[in-house]
């Protein structure tokens, strides 16, 4: 399939859930989806097109939280990023871990660093933070403040 065929199929099949379609360059496409449509589109890319799942990157965009899922169709040198925007007060999205095994660890990481709930993922244990880290403190959020009075502050930074 050519690049145009791939993109037009995505647009025709999922057109009703696509909020924004940004064709940035020959290698990069950014698609914004409604959160409920994430799993079907991701399944289409991963299972049907055979695209590789790179990683998911979550970020705090001040007014909302957003998560980007990056897939690449290697034969076409095309990287498709699916964006979902989540409400900051109750960020939840369906889990991809059952469809794509590789997504299990990154969902654990985003859960503990940003506080995003992945419905359907039973295993959201801590991956990177230690057990002593207080619950409800999300380091990658903009409103994160240093909570540990015993942290060492050295010259420099």
């Amino acid at each position, binding site marked *: 399939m050519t690049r145009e065929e791939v993109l037009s199929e995505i647009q025709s099949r999922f057109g009703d859930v696509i909020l924004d379609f940004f064709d*940035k360059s020959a290698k*990069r496409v950014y698609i914004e989806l409604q959160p409920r449509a994430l799993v079907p589109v991701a399944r289409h890319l991963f299972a049907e097109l055979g695209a590789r799942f*790179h990683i998911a*990157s979550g970020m705090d965009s001040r007014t909302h939280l957003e998560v980007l899922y990056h897939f*690449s169709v290697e034969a076409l040198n095309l990287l498709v990023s699916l964006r979902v925007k989540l409400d900051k007060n109750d960020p939840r999205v369906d889990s991809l871990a059952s469809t794509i095994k590789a997504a299990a660890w990154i969902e654990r990481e985003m859960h503990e660093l940003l506080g995003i709930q992945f419905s359907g993922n039973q295993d959201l244990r801590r991956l990177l933070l230690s057990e002593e880290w207080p619950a409800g403190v999300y380091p990658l959020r903009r409103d994160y403040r240093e909570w540990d009075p015993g942290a060492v502050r050295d010259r420099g*930074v």
Partner: protein
Amino acid sequence: MPKSVISIGPYHPLQEEPEHFQLTVEGEKVVDIEVSVGYNHRGIEKLSERRSFDQATFVIERICGICSTSHPFAYTQAVEDIIPVEVPERAKYIRTIIAEGERIHSHLLWFGLAGHFLGYNTVYMWMWRLREEILDVMEILSGNRQNYAMFKPGGVRRDIKPEDIPLAIKKIDSILPTVDRLKKAILDDPVLHARLKGIGTLTKEEAIAYCALGPTSRASGVARDVRKDAPYGAYDRLDWNMIVTANGDVWDKAVVRLLELYESIKIMKHCLLNLPGGEIDLNLKSIPPGEGIGAHEAPRGETFHYVRSDGTNRPARHKVRAPTFMNLPTLKATVPGSSIADAAIILAAIDPCYCCTERMAVRSADGRKLYSGEELLRLSREKTSRIQKELGKR
């Protein structure tokens, strides 16, 4: 048979970085493995947000000592992808030279460690002595053996002087005969065949399901290499081969890395001898708002960086994904079913780089002294000497 749990880590004589494995064993066989990481977490993604785009390159370099070039390479490509813009030709060649030099030293390091786990300490010493030549080359070209400080968004920081190139080529050429000798010594050895063949097999379907990367996936027959799939740098300016084998066991992973050594030497020499003239830096003054993605084939697989800019001189978000993050979960597929003596070499076969995998605040991890890790090492070496005796008898 009753099950018992062997705990390896966090302080681990097998590898330099802290990690925690829990192997559930029944008798001699491993039935399950649980991988815990997070001991090296330093907060680098958050640190990037407090530095300018140019200064952040130095933080990114220090994510890992072995793959010190891979992260800046992917990061600078991500920043250049925001605009998007292409760096000058000479900068592309210099970046490729440094990246391939790093690949050579990293693979030699892995061979040394693999020899160490199997009990072949001679291989360990030889490979690391060979590494000294390539590290000298990196010192000549960039000024340091690690953390080369060569990359910046828009190009490279320092030029390669023409008078340094003959000495660099001479040193790279001096590695080849020894690699040839070691290749024959490794590939002919029946003890190594018995030790590594059929161990820790990762099937092609599992490699695709777990999205494994680098030599781990190429050994399982998945022909993926960012340098070929999405060419960047000088990788599409010359002919070189992607090494893919079919079986996916530890033996294949070793063979892939060995043959990649030859390809890297070829690429590095070609780029050094054919350096084009011109500028080395675009002198980017400001980065417009937007987002960019950069990827580079590190020695362990694909490094992926995502950078979001909001028009200031600092990244608004910087996501770093190292290859070991995707390769570690494959251990759940390769380790169960093997014997305990093989666990050490299977864990090492994915060439784990934990400091790449986790990048946030280190908390006082009270190191629990463990003796089971040393036990694993001893078991591994005992198996090797057992096989050596058996083959010696024949």
